[in-house]
């Protein structure tokens, strides 16, 4: 069997620093956190949106409304997966009308997830604007979508997978790049 290569892109401290910078950028661009709401994309974007929420609380002293969205019902490849995987919940318990919505996800790849998430958001109201914050941008876009706030740009090949773990204590957070065995991956 071929050995599978795993490379650490960010350790816990690295992730924390990157998220601090992202949070400052979000606050700077929006001139504060008023009118800002966070929406994490299930499942990888949810813990990230919670971290950013806490950091905004520390920096700006305000608690921004934070929700999450599951994009399963908005996918464009429903019949392609070969089976139906369990759905997550969508919970946006506040109005997004006229708000500046920051969509948060862990990895930006083809852009199809973001397209689906934007369609989902529009069903909840009419935000003033939608901005995108991602921890990792790994390229290979298939749609004209770009992020407003990027943690790290990581050139990858399609046979690699980016593994993001931002749960538990900050020391345990990691971002790994794994080379998949041939035949797997996209």
């Amino acid at each position, binding site marked *: 069997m071929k050995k599978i290569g795993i490379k650490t892109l960010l350790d816990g401290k690295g992730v924390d620093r990157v998220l601090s910078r992202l949070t400052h950028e979000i606050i700077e661009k929006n001139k504060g956190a008023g009118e800002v709401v966070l929406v994490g994309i299930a499942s990888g974007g949810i813990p990230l949106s919670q971290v950013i929420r806490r950091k905004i609380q520390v920096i700006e002293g305000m608690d921004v409304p934070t929700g999450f969205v599951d994009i399963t*019902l908005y996918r464009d490849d429903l019949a392609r997966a070969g089976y139906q995987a369990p759905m997550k919940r969508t919970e946006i318990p506040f109005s997004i009308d006229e708000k500046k919505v920051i969509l948060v996800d862990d990895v930006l790849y083809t852009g199809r997830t973001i397209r689906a998430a934007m369609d989902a958001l529009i*069903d909840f109201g009419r935000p003033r604007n939608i901005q995108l914050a991602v921890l990792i941008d790994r390229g290979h876009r298939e749609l004209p979508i770009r992020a407003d706030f990027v943690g790290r740009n990581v050139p990858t090949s399609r046979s690699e997978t980016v593994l993001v773990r931002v749960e538990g204590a900050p020391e345990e957070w990691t971002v790994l790049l794994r080379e998949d065995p041939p035949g797997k991956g996209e």
Partner: protein
Amino acid sequence: MEWRRRHVLGLSDFHPEEMEFVIDTARSMEEVVSRDIKKVPALRGKTVVNLFFEASTRTRTSFEMAGKRLSADVVNFSAASSSVTKGETLLDTARNIEAMKPNILVVRHSASGAALFLSRHVSCSIINAGDGSNEHPSQGLLDLYTILKVKGKIAGLKVAIVGDILHSRVVRSDLHSLGRMGAKLWLCGPATLVPREMERTGAVVTSDIREAVRGADVIIMLRIQLERQKTSYFPSLREYSRKFGLNREVFSLAKEDAVIMHPGPINRGVELSDELADCDRSLVLRQVESGVAVRMALLYLLAGGSHAAH
């Protein structure tokens, strides 16, 4: 778990894990229905045909609404207005509809096994919406879901099902759904309408409604199917109502937080008194609500999956 089932013909071969999967999906669907915009694009470009050879407003409307909220195109085909009255067979009708390339056929038919039969002869997915006195799987699942929402669990609950057990497809599906999740089931009705063989399912059979209701957590009242009572199974509706109808006095024997369910439509004053049908312990309308969510879940699960990718 991954969903790989192609048809939903009955619950007799459903694992508890699969039922939980449907319920979990139904919860997500219920969130969709609670939004201002109650429509998602999941089944865009898919066609669902409601093929109903038996009268039904509630189930058909429920499937129709479920399909439309998922953006499927839903076509209703009812026997009364079709070539069935001109003598076309079930299979010919189904093949003709199949030639129009639907993705899912929702079938109701008076013959037990009709859905299974069709699943062997057509290439699209089949959902059984009631076949004779065999099964009504979406009802079995929505009853399960409704009880779970109110009671938080199924295992250990005493569930009394009262009425025409013999002809009821709801009972057979409930036996699989509630029974397999660990409910203690009691079946009650006139001896002529409760087959003794039902004891083999592990349920307790009785002709005494008081015994069935005593200490029950859930009471499911079945409709006396007036249209099926051409043979006399009991002397008169009045006597039936007196012996097997649920009224305040009998209901007081149940647990303090017991709830009443009914698959509808209710014969008020026969199996259920007006007073109980409208009381706050009656879950009848919540069943209808759960029904749309469960059917959205089933349509969604069948429309994905490997069999759907041609």
